[in-house]
């Protein structure tokens, strides 16, 4: 596939890996966080961890939208889906996420709730148009990558006055999550592999604070093997030279200013919540989006009652520690036993972008000596 295969050249990967070994001081320990779950998967799928020098530890970040949704919000979605008049439309990833009572949307569907999988929020709007007798609620999740899609869908719903459509908004922002990680005394990260696709929307400037306030380098990277290795090399060079800058490895799609049309849609349709609860990270100020007042008629939280309860994560599940980079998936007592992709306990095992799912799928069941 064009723009994919070229970046999987094994010779290039080996060449960069050889260079990486010259960029670390033997015996040192460098902790780099790949913020995005898409990167986590690419790393294990392609075995990039084996190409890194032993001095470099990769810590997996919170950039997995399904993983960071707290249990209470899943229960709210189930509650909406169980209303007889409601059709809940969701990305497929969310269906198997267990809520507070260990029940998922998939189980709600099995018990008769009308839950449908859509590929795009526009498909959910299409359902509302096709079935005017149903109240179609779109379960909006994701970072700035998917939020513009929800925004444009709401703009269209208003323009076409589709009255039986609304959004249960759980969109979150990557910047405040990064700040929460940088402020956490237990997680000390030396540099960040920046999320490639969020950055197509927000650009590279929102990461400036990581360098100016926290003196850590950020390299925005693509998702192919050589992209990620190249980004690690760029980070190690910055660390070696004592620099902390935002660099862009993914210039083919990421521009410094981001996507102005998408940013304008976000600004029109959403407002920032005072705070939003993240699984593992707790409540983070100004980290979540709600639907702006001008679009109140399309806001599921204003149209329907949702319980809005705050529910603690199950004690056995260490998703919270995994999301903060404090534990590797195999260090969790239920990893691969009580918690598997078929019967997940925690979100990190459910999502195709979750660290536990990546470790499970690609055989990282224990520490490699």
């Amino acid at each position, binding site marked *: 596939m064009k723009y994919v295969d070229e970046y999987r050249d094994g010779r*290039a990967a080996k060449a960069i890996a050889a260079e990486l070994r010259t960029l670390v001081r033997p015996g040192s320990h460098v902790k780099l966080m790949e913020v995005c779950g898409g990167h986590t998967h690419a790393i294990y799928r392609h075995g990039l961890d084996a190409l890194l020098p032993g001095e470099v530890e990769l810590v997996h970040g919170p950039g997995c939208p399904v993983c960071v949704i707290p249990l209470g919000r899943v229960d709210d979605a189930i509650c909406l889906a169980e209303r007889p008049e409601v059709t809940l439309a969701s990305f497929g990833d969310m269906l198997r996420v267990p809520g507070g009572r260990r029940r998922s949307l998939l189980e709600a569907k099995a018990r008769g709730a009308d839950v449908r999988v859509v590929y795009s929020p526009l498909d959910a709007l299409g359902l509302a148009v096709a079935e005017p007798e149903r109240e179609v609620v779109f379960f909006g999740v994701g970072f700035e990558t998917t939020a513009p899609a929800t925004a444009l869908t709401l703009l269209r719903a208003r323009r076409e006055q589709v009255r039986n459509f609304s959004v249960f908004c759980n969109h979150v922002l990557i910047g405040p999550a990064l700040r929460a990680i940088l402020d956490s005394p237990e997680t000390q990260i030396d540099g960040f592999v920046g999320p490639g696709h969020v950055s197509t929307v927000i650009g590279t400037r929102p990461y400036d604070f990581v360098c100016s306030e926290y003196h850590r380098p950020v390299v925005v990277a693509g998702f192919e093997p050589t992209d990620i290795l190249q980004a690690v090399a760029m980070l190690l060079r910055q660390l070696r030279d004592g620099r902390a800058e935002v660099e862009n490895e993914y210039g083919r799609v990421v521009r410094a200013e981001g996507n102005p049309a998408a940013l304008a849609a976000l600004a029109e349709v959403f407002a920032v919540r005072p705070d939003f609860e993240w699984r593992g990270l707790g409540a983070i100020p100004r980290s979540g989006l709600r639907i702006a007042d001008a679009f109140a008629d399309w806001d599921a939280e204003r149209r329907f009652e949702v319980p809005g309860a705050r529910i603690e994560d199950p004690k056995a599940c260490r998703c919270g520690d995994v999301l903060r980079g404090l534990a590797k998936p195999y260090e969790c007592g239920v990893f691969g036993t009580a918690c598997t992709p078929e019967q997940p306990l925690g979100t990190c095992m459910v999502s195709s972008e979750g660290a536990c799912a990546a470790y499970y799928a690609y055989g990282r069941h224990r520490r490699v000596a």
Partner: protein
Amino acid sequence: MCLGVPGQILERLDDGLAKVDFTGVRRTVSVAFTPEAEPGDWVLVHVGFALATIDEDEARATLDLLGEAIAAELEPAGNKLFQEGRG
């Protein structure tokens, strides 16, 4: 969900939509966020929306860097074949 797929625009349709080819699979995609994209251009698509046009020059620049990395790796062994054959 944040995974983007590159596809090539086949034709622009009404209402900010376009027909996009993903190596054989064709789907209607919103190009409202990439108004500059024309048929033949490559775009990165997320959940049915093109979020960026792929910059051919930048893509080439990254590949050239990779080529240099390979060449540098091979050079100490005196093997210039790849570099010359890279074209």
